């Protein structure tokens, strides 16, 4: 099985005296949903960018399927907090963007894009312009666009961060549905503690100054949803509340209460 591996990665930005990330190792398998959480400045996004090939590590290495990561590539499609969609294209054309780059013909492109739009529950919105879509719909288009590249891993940088609380909750189950349906590995950055618990198979807690791993949890709540249990029943489980408090403690560890 393909693994996305960050090995003893340190990141230092030009002109910064202290590294943003120091000596972090992550190993994500293709059926994993790995979530990075932590306070601001703990280097979550830096690590995601290393995996994406957008930032080169100062020390350590990154690899996917054994091949070193030296540049961005469609085997690791990124979705950002601000959807970064192309407003001159329709929703369908946005989704088909990766296929267009590969020279896939127009009709084949449209057919495939419509399939992916249906997967993110946007059937019939293909002809819509980007500015006609709500924030949640735009993120759905962004996810479908990333999946169209047929990546091994999805790299999600706070993809639900800009959405309102209710939309966010619905998008969490959409994300899980996508993860099970498309069989991609996920590496995601979030601020949301409950979001991390709902989505992750593994949660990696980072602490700032410099960014480093303080805890790593295996969690089973997302697999329970994937196995058919209702999300409300998962969240109502006392074990969920216990895990939330344990995770919160880990994030704020060492900080005066």
């Amino acid at each position, binding site marked *: 099985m393909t693994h996305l591996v960050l090995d003893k990665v340190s990141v230092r930005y030009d002109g910064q005296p202290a590294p943003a990330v120091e000596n972090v190792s992550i190993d994500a398998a293709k059926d994993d949903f790995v979530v990075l959480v932590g306070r601001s400045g703990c280097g979550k996004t830096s690590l995601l960018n290393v995996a*994406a*090939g*957008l930032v080169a590590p100062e020390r350590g290495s990154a690899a996917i399927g054994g091949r070193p990561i030296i*540049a*961005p*590539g*469609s085997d*690791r*499609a*990124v*979705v*950002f907090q*601000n959807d*970064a969609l*192309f*407003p*001159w294209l329709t929703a369908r054309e946005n989704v088909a*963007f*990766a296929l*267009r*780059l*590969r020279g896939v013909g127009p009709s084949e492109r449209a057919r495939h894009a419509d399939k992916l739009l249906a997967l993110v529950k946007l059937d019939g919105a293909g002809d819509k*312009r*980007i*500015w006609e879509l709500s924030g949640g719909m735009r993120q759905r288009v*962004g996810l479908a*666009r*990333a999946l*169209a*590249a047929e990546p091994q891993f999805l*790299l999600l940088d706070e993809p639900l961060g800009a959405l309102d609380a209710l939309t966010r909750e619905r998008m969490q189950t959409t994300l899980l549905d996508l993860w099970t349906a498309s069989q991609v590995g996920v590496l995601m950055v979030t601020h949301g503690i409950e979001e991390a618990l709902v989505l992750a198979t593994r949660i990696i807690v980072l602490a700032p100054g410099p960014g480093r791993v303080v805890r790593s949890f295996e969690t089973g709540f997302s697999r329970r949803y994937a196995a058919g249990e209702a999300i409300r029943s998962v969240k109502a489980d006392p074990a969920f509340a216990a895990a939330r408090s344990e995770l919160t403690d880990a994030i704020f560890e060492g900080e005066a209460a």
Partner: protein
Amino acid sequence: MTISSYSERPASKLAKVDDEADALSVPWSRPRPKRSGVSARVVSAVTILVVLAAWALSARLQLVSPVFLPSPVAVWSKFVVVARDGFVDATLAQHIAASLGRVFAALIAALVVGVPIGLAIGISTIGRGIFDPLLEFLRPIPPLAYLPLVIIWFGIGEPSKILVIAIAMLAPVALSTASGVRGVSQERINAARSLGATSMQLVRHVILPSALPSILTGLRIALGAGWSTLVAAELVAATRGLGFMIQSAAQFLVTDVVVMGILVIAVIAFGLEFVIRRIERGLVPWAGRE
């Protein structure tokens, strides 16, 4: 413009002039559900009518000699005559066609040269290092200053005239393109790269379309610069063109043709501005709405 009609238009940064006009005509800070009083458009129409009336009145009362200020009626009848019979060996339509031809030939040249230069400035530091000082050198020089040099180099033919106008258009096109390119969000570029875009695909499919609103703004500014350079370009050895027509008329103190030529230029410039705004709305409907 009423508030309801405002919401129907794209809140485009390209419509900035309109916004400013609105801000002037709305002295209240909070929005009002229904505007009382008159719209800016009506005020503008009244202003134009008042100016026309003052012009007609001063001509009628012979406050100024017709050599200095011919009456509106005289200008209009001259317009009809020149449109039908022509002035200095060419009809009005031929003069207009000659001028428009030069301006558009120059515009195409400025786009063909200026957009790639703007891309180079916006994308690469080397490109910026090469072209920024050249453009900053060229930009503040009035076209009349380099006109003689262009004539020494390229003669008095049509290419020189087009070149002078194109030089005046180059800086606005290139600098607007560069600022549009620099304004492309890093996330958009990163997203495209992670979807597998090569450098060339990035330019073609992401950077150029992202910069298009800015390029069109540059095109609009360039056309304005082009029109102001036109008269200068047609000073030398032209036999046709609106600038040439005005110049020849001025030499014989045919003031009504001079005034008529000025008005024709104004109307054409206004019409072009209108057309380009339409094109902008059709081509980049997303501007300001992202």
